[in-house]
């Protein structure tokens, strides 16, 4: 028991209070600045309602999420096994690692021209960008996860007579899973950043498109801000899913320093 353990009410009270103060500040800051372009919170709420009424908001959210679902899903499906393999065979990683390390710092946005050449302007390009952006962090996390498995666990596994395949499935993978989850979580965050950027350039639907479109078609900053808030809220929700995963007991051990 620590003294600074927050009470249950505090868990909700402080974030709500912070958000409230922020809204009040925003409201009066807009009034004080006498801006007629930048909307206050009420106007943004009205904009969001308008989008809901027209039925575009749900459609755009669905489009953005499905792009992330496909691109990120593919990156996970290919990246985890690939990373596990690289971690398992150090010789293979020596060959591939320099390439990965070089590709990794390239911003996914720098790939936009390449994506357009390869796939044209459209959905496939956006999905490709999301795939690229999430693939490398997933590979690297999975590879390092395997490499960092304490040798004691592998030895214990071998001691109980496990074949190499079983050892990978029953010891190395679960031992590396907390690190893999961290990689997946980071990659999902990046994927969500990238989908918005990709939609600004390459497609005509989605939340990123909404931001650009609302601005271009008549400076509707209330819609811009509404879209931005949606982007933030969904990003937060996606992150919370992973935080939930990290709480599972067969994974949580990897996140507790004192364990």
């Amino acid at each position, binding site marked *: 028991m620590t003294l600074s353990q927050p009470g249950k009410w505090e868990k909700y009270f402080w974030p709500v209070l912070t958000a409230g103060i922020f809204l009040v500040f925003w409201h009066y800051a807009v009034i004080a600045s006498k801006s007629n372009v930048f909307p206050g919170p009420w106007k943004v709420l009205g904009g969001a309602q308008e989008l809901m009424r027209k039925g575009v908001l749900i459609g755009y959210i669905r489009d953005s999420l499905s792009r992330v679902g496909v691109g990120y899903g593919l990156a996970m499906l290919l990246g985890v096994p690939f990373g596990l393999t690289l971690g398992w065979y150090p010789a293979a990683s020596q060959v591939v690692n320099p390439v990965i390390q070089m590709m990794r710092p390239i911003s996914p946005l720098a790939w936009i021209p390449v994506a357009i050449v390869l796939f044209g302007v459209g959905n496939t390009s956006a999905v490709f960008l999301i795939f690229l952006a999430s693939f490398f962090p997933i590979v690297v996390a999975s590879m390092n996860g395997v490499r960092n498995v*304490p040798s*004691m*666990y592998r*030895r*214990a596994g*071998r*001691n*109980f*007579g496990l074949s190499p395949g079983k050892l990978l499935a*029953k*010891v190395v993978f*679960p*031992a590396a*899973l907390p690190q893999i989850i961290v990689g997946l979580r980071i990659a999902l965050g990046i994927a969500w950043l990238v989908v918005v950027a990709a939609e600004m350039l390459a497609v005509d639907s989605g939340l990123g498109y909404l931001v650009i479109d609302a601005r271009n078609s008549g400076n509707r900053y209330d819609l811009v801000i509404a879209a931005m808030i949606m982007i933030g809220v969904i990003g937060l929700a996606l992150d919370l899913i992973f935080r939930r995963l990290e709480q599972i*007991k*067969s*994974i*949580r*051990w*990897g996140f*507790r320093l004192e*364990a």
Partner: protein
Amino acid sequence: MTEEKVKTPAAKAVKTKLRATGINKTFKRDGTETSVLENVELEVAQGEFLCLLGPSGCGKSTLLNICAGFLSPTTGTVTIDGEPVTGPDPRRIFVFQERGVFPWLTVEGNIAFGLAKLSKAEQAERIAHYIKMVGLQGFEKAYPQELSGGMKQRLEVARALAVNPDMLFLDEPFGALDSITRLIMRGELLRIWEAERKTIIFVTHDIEEAVQLADRVVVMSARPATIQTIVEIDIEHPRDISSPRYLELRDGIFNEIGLAHKI
């Protein structure tokens, strides 16, 4: 093959379980070679409790890993039941300090780890049996992070025993525990050993621990380690640790290692 015999404290003739002959081990690091073990000869009888004792860094873990098949000696051979050791084997389980339990599995899951070949019913029976033996009832569904150090250590012992090995290798298994838990664990290990009569090689650098547990204490010199002497502990269990014979044996080992028993 002729039946091999070694002497035990009770002077009973019993079968040799493990025989290490002419073991040398050198490690290469940064181009320099360090000799860790030199010409180690060791025989362990079936059902014997043997302690390896020696100063830190002398090569006890190295020797134990060679016996368990995790390392191969530079020269020399280890045979168990007359067969040369070429790798780890589920018939002989290595127990690490508590950290060897799998944190992603429950207590039950850990004990069941080596039991995949058994039917579900047999698994359940073994799990229940060994949970009871090591006193973890009520913690079947708990994860290692919810257990104390001593409980984790008992879990690892239970996981090892559950596959019914005929040998156990323990590398300073109680080293990370507090002194009270350590004493309790020694008692429990002896109780289990007396019930199951596994052959045990137990590494420690604690002289008292060695004299309390072992049939024979193998005293190793500093690196490169050779076997300096082997001391038979001819005291019946349960041992009275204030008896003159206990103190005599203990002090004998203190002198052997070159430590005056005074601070």
